[in-house]
């Protein structure tokens, strides 16, 4: 491999901006700078050095911070588009046609366009995933591209630096110390710097005090965390890693838990409570009578016996009893059951009296279980009621005059009964719905008089299992750790050289937080009577501005 040989004789990799050994600027650009660009300590960055093959070009594309920032901004803008209208996940409509209709009906032609462009399910679009994946690749490539050379350069730091390096640092000092201190000035500095928690290295009359070097690794650590996190997110797509099911369960019911093989759940009762507070201003404004306090399902979790057949529910073993509440899911074996929804007072049973319309005499009562209606209900030998048809969710008659049902849920039950009585052994037919009776044959002697309903509560639960959680946790932790290291610590370096004539030259650099390194410098300057430092970037702009202001003042 080609080498870039410095005047001092050190062989630097091609692309190096500042000699690793002595600190001399190597490129024309660096030589022309008044204050050296200390990014990555001037080490050779692959992407800035090679640009020939396809691999180089792809590598350079993804390693570019400009590209990385562009990807961040694009992701940011695109993500915000997804919040203009409700996402499909929050729309109740069950099928595609229903969703399409929802967007058009609710938001007009804009809604239709939004839906057509796929923005209504934006975060699941393939191009969104591609965008995030590109961001991930950018993070990996850029980190390798910069991180490795930086690490090498930080590891191989020499104490003694060339004048051209020292003078091109942002904070510098040159001058003499009082002659009485001259001989032991470096010792005094070393002692003081150690007290300030610097690591001090000496090489003859040169000194390097360094602090917080590890903070330079913060960004790379947090990028590793982010990548682990993204890998965890990607793993959701693999089978068996992620379970997301839901179930409705009535009070008193025992059902197999979807997605959780071999487990059954019994709903003992569902509890809905409200706060008994006086209505608040917000409640009055919004017309809300009561604020919910608790949604709770008291359950028993069962497990099938080892030797049970699939679906066999007779010898179930109790695993645990629990009250599932919002924020307090039932957790077992990596699975968790969450309280998500409920339906109160769902119709369970409807009762009717078989009544003589004229005399009002009742022959007996029939109770129809709306989930499990029977074919016929026998009252006595000569009297029974046949349930000829059942429409759980009656929605009206179609063109042929046939009753229709919307769903299998008993929201608005309707029945066609055949009433067999001693007077009418062949039966009388009656269509009965809530507040509606049709007698197709004309005038019946008997009717099914509504006598009562029984209701039941239903609980909607979500079943989740996510094996990626530990990975996400580790990724998140490493990310935060790296972020803290990179943000709350900084890498400070102070180089000092003393020449034979007693002259002192000092240079200081920090990757961030110049305010604090100057405080350190103030401390050693005072302690060791060093020449006063200057900040070569300081206040140039301020001076300009201040002059402007003064001129203004004079005018005024």
């Amino acid at each position, binding site marked *: 491999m080609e080498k870039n040989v410095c005047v001092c004789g050190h062989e630097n990799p091609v692309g190096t901006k500042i000699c690793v050994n002595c600190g001399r600027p190597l490129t024309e650009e660096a030589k022309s700078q008044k204050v050296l660009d200390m990014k990555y300590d001037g080490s050779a960055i692959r992407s800035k050095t090679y640009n020939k093959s396809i691999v180089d070009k792809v590598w350079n594309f993804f390693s570019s911070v400009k590209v990385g920032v562009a990807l961040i901004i694009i992701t940011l803008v695109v993500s915000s588009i997804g919040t203009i209208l409700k996402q499909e996940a929050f729309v109740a409509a069950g099928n595609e046609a229903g969703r399409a209709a929802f967007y058009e009906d609710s938001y007009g032609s804009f809604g239709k366009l939004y839906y057509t462009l796929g923005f209504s399910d934006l975060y699941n679009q393939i191009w969104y995933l591609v965008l995030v994946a590109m961001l991930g690749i950018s993070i990996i490539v850029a980190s390798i591209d910069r991180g490795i050379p930086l690490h090498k350069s930080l590891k191989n730091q020499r104490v003694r630096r060339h004048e051209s390096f020292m003078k091109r640092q942002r904070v510098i000092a040159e001058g003499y110390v009082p002659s009485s201190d001259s001989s032991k000035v470096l010792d005094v500095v070393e002692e003081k710097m150690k007290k300030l928690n610097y690591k001090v290295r000496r090489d003859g009359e040169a000194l390097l005090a360094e602090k917080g070097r590890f903070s330079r690794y913060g960004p790379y650590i947090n990028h590793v965390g982010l990548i682990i996190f993204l890998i965890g997110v990607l793993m959701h797509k693999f089978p068996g890693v992620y379970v*997301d099911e839901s179930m409705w369960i009535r009070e008193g019911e025992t059902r197999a838990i979807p997605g959780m093989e071999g487990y059954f759940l019994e709903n003992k009762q569902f509890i809905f409570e409200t706060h008994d507070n006086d209505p608040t201003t*917000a409640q009055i404004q919004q017309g809300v009578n009561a604020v919910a306090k608790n949604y709770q399902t008291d359950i028993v979790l069962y497990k099938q016996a080892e030797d049970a057949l699939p679906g066999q529910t007779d010898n179930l073993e109790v695993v645990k009893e629990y009250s599932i509440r919002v*924020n307090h899911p039932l957790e077992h074996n990596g699975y968790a059951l*969450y*309280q998500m929804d409920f339906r109160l007072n769902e119709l369970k049973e409807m009762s009717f009296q078989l009544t003589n319309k004229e005399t009002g005499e009742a022959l007996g009562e029939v109770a129809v279980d709306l989930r499990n209606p029977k074919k016929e209900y026998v009252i006595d030998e000569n009297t029974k009621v046949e349930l000829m048809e059942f429409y759980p969710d009656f929605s009206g008659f179609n063109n042929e005059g046939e009753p229709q049902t919307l769903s299998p849920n008993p929201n608005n039950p309707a029945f066609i009964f055949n009433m067999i009585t001693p007077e009418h052994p062949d039966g009388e037919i009656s269509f009965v719905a809530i507040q509606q009776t049709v007698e197709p044959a004309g005038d019946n002697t008997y009717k099914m008089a509504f006598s009562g309903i029984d209701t039941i509560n239903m609980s909607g639960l979500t079943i989740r299992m996510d094996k990626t959680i530990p990975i996400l946790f580790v990724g998140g932790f490493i990310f935060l750790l790296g972020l803290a290291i990179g943000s709350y610590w900084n890498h400070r370096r102070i180089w000092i050289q003393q020449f034979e004539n007693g002259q002192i030259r000092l240079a200081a650099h920090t990757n961030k937080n110049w*305010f604090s390194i100057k405080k350190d410098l103030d401390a050693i300057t005072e302690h060791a009577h060093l020449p006063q430092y200057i900040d070569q*970037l300081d206040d140039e702009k301020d001076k300009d501005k201040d002059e402007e*202001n003064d001129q203004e003042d004079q005018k005024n």
Partner: protein
Amino acid sequence: MSLIDLSGNLLEVAFIAYLIATLLIGGSIKSNKPDGAEKRANKWGNLAILVTIIGFLSHIGYFITRWIHSGHAPVSNMFEFTTAFGMFLVGSFILIFFMYRVTALGLVALPIALLIIAWAGMFPQDVTPLVPSLQSHWLTIHVITAALGQSILAISAVAGLIYLLKDVDTKKKGKQRFWLEAILYFLVLILGNIVTSAVFNAVGYEAQYSYVDKNGMSQEIIYNVPAIFGMNESATLTEGAMDPMIEVPAFIHALKLTTVVWAIIVGTILYILIRLIARRRIADMLKPLVKKVNLQLFDEIGYRSVLIGFPVFSLGALVFAMIWAQEAWGRFWGWDPKEVWALITWLFYAAFLHLRLSKGWEGNKSAWLALIGFAIIIFNLVVVNLVIAGLHSYA
């Protein structure tokens, strides 16, 4: 005096203290005549900080007493959250002050905190009972950490605004001059919003209307400002109340639109009055106050507050949020609008840091970015909470 009354009084004390402190800081900067001016300025400045700290302690007193009274951390509705955000903003200012010892920061930080607290006062202040999803210790942990992170990030915008007030040349026509003034105009609009609400509250304006919502259901609504816009198929219920001037379709919330338009009208009138009386741009009026600030230092303060705030924000608004979402809903991320906007805020500050580190966007550019970041934070507070409906909606 009951605990909740005490809590309200403590908040008022805090508000007044911040107001006084703002004036004191103004005084500390104004009094720079040559004869011993520096000493006097220091004295005023120290007094200002003392008053700020007293206000802050009183503000914490409000927070704690309200917490004890309601039994949950007072961050569960718009009033509580916004007030707490104002408190953390002042707290962050105090923190940064003790790191850098620059009182000038308070010149912008305190008025913004005052605006935020006054704006919070427009929302119903009674204690609301918690719905089941909020009954978790994560409410305390997540919301407080997120608000703290946002408030530290906001300090970078405070430093940025001061930087730009000094740096931008208001003598020359240009984009920067325009946008700087636009920011100050926006602050006056918020004042307009507060003034409108306070005036109509003081006269006890109330008008009730019935309307038909987007699901075709009949609803009723109370306006506390005269109805410029009426809800869909609005009918006036209160006798003698004005009929809405313009009726809007059901997918637009006419009351919210009315509130915004009132803020713009009153705010613009205020702004024009200020301009007429001062015969200068607001930026020009503020310039003398910041002419002694050290630009380099304010640039560093802006950067440092992003460095301090970004990890706190990541922890509170993303990591804790995900843990809670996993516990409450069984999924750590659900693309709810508030979640998305937390991600957007986070991405923005990530871009800020990368631009600064690698592209050398310092000084002027960095200051503008800090202001855009604050705009996103305010968007989160106002628009995402009140306009975009979602799981986190306070509206």
